[in-house]
């Protein structure tokens, strides 16, 4: 109990003193996970929408694959990304192992199926005739898709929250492909793991609290937008 209190006190000390290292780690976490979520939003929404709107052989299989992907274990993603991008791997020439780029790639891979699955379900949940109604009003195919995406904006915002929440709190892949390098690829989760193993529980708790606050603030912002869109 004393440890937790100490940790909380330490957390506020670190936050209020704008400890440059902690601020750096926090900002980096936000940037990496934000970028990864942003990328996953593009890929996830476009593929999710495409799958929802087209009929093809094996569609059910594809949908179950996407749904399975929503629960991709981060360490498995980390492992495969590592194998792909290490020096002797097929993408080794990119030289991005142990860089924030690699973390973005891994986190985007984790978040994409989440965003894809939710957007797929969102588009499928729209009334089946809505598509035809929009086309009949003279929309081009692109205009139609855009209207459908806009119409699903509430679940899509939920998808962004789920994706961001998944990657900012993820540690397995980040530590494998990022290496937890000080001042370069150390993010809140990997730093928390390291401080725990060093026995610096107060700092670990502080980092954990900052992570929670960050996740909370981002979700608060998105919920705010969502609720403004949807009065009542």
């Amino acid at each position, binding site marked *: 109990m004393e440890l937790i209190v100490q940790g909380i006190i330490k957390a506020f000390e670190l936050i209020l003193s704008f400890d440059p290292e902690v601020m750096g780690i926090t*900002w*980096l976490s*936000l*940037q*990496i996970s*934000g*970028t990864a*979520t*942003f990328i996953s*939003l593009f890929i996830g929404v476009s593929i999710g929408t495409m799958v929802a709107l087209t009929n093809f052989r094996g569609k059910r299989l594809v949908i179950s694959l996407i749904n399975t992907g929503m629960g991709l274990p981060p360490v498995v993603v980390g492992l495969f990304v590592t194998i792909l991008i*290490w*020096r*002797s791997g097929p993408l*080794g020439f990119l*030289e991005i*192992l*142990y*860089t*924030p*780029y690699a973390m*973005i790639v891994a986190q985007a891979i984790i978040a994409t199926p989440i965003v894809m699955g939710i957007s797929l379900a969102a588009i499928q949940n729209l009334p089946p005739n809505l598509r035809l109604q929009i086309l009949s009003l003279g929309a081009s195919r692109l*205009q139609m898709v*855009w209207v459908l995406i*806009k119409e699903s*904006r509430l679940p899509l915002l939920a998808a*962004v929250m789920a994706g961001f929440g998944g990657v900012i709190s993820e540690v397995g892949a980040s530590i494998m492909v990022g*290496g*937890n*390098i*000080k001042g*370069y*690829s150390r993010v809140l989760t990997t730093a928390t793991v*390291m401080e*725990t*193993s*060093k*026995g610096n*529980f107060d700092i670990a708790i502080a980092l954990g609290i900052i992570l929670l606050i960050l996740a909370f603030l981002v979700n608060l912002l998105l919920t705010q*937008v969502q609720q403004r*869109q949807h009065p009542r």
Partner: protein
Amino acid sequence: MKMFRNSRLIITLMIAALLVVSGAANLYAAPKQKNIILATTTSTQDSGLLDVLLPVFEKETGYFVKTIAVGSGQAMAMGQKGEADVMLVHSPDAEKKFVAEGYGINRRLVMHNDFIIVGPGADAAKIKGVKSSTEALKQIAMANALFISRGDNSGTNSQEKKLWKAAGVNPENQKWYQQTGLGMGQTLNVTSEKKGYTLADRGTYLAMKKNLALNILVEGDAALLNIYHVIEVNSTKWPKANGEGAKAFAEFMVSKRTQEIIKSFGVDKFGSPLFFPDAGKKVEDLGK
């Protein structure tokens, strides 16, 4: 997209995201050519030694060191695949094999500290003050007292296995023998929580002492020396490895100035040094 200019929500989100992304892009503009991947043991990172040494090295040479702190076993596995450029490890037998097989070159002695056997104050196996480490392990086994092993093929773990072998005890599958698969710091935490015994390096133990309910029970045995070598990955075998950077780092580690820093590291905080610089010495002369 003139028709949806009123979608303020989407535009706001996009701008926010772009800000984050562009900020990120700036930050990642780290030196690309002059990267060195250092595979090392958790003990060097967890003790804080690297946090002191690396900035000096980076400032001096302009290299950017990416430290991947893992067990010695994994560090050497990385070296074996050419995924690291230089290694700072403490698993002498595996290191010799590694160099003999041509994966590494220029293995040089850097420093040592020592292993200690730590355990709870109650000391059920009554090993406090026992001089021989193998004797102490035998007593733990006899008493069926809980022993926590890292079980991760790290330098500490191979040292521990070597000691069990010398003691003539096979602890595998024994009820009193548990493996964490974690780093030194976490294993110490686990040991402390479970009131068990474990083999630890002195540096990590001292750094974490304040949070542990563990005492040093056995120390000073010559068999407990923990010796760190720096090894450059053979860049003729792995052309992608940064041979020059590795050499620069290895030379930095054995340089006089660095050895001085190692000597004084930790004195202010723990009252005694965590590591003893040994550059240029012979392994046989250590601990005398």
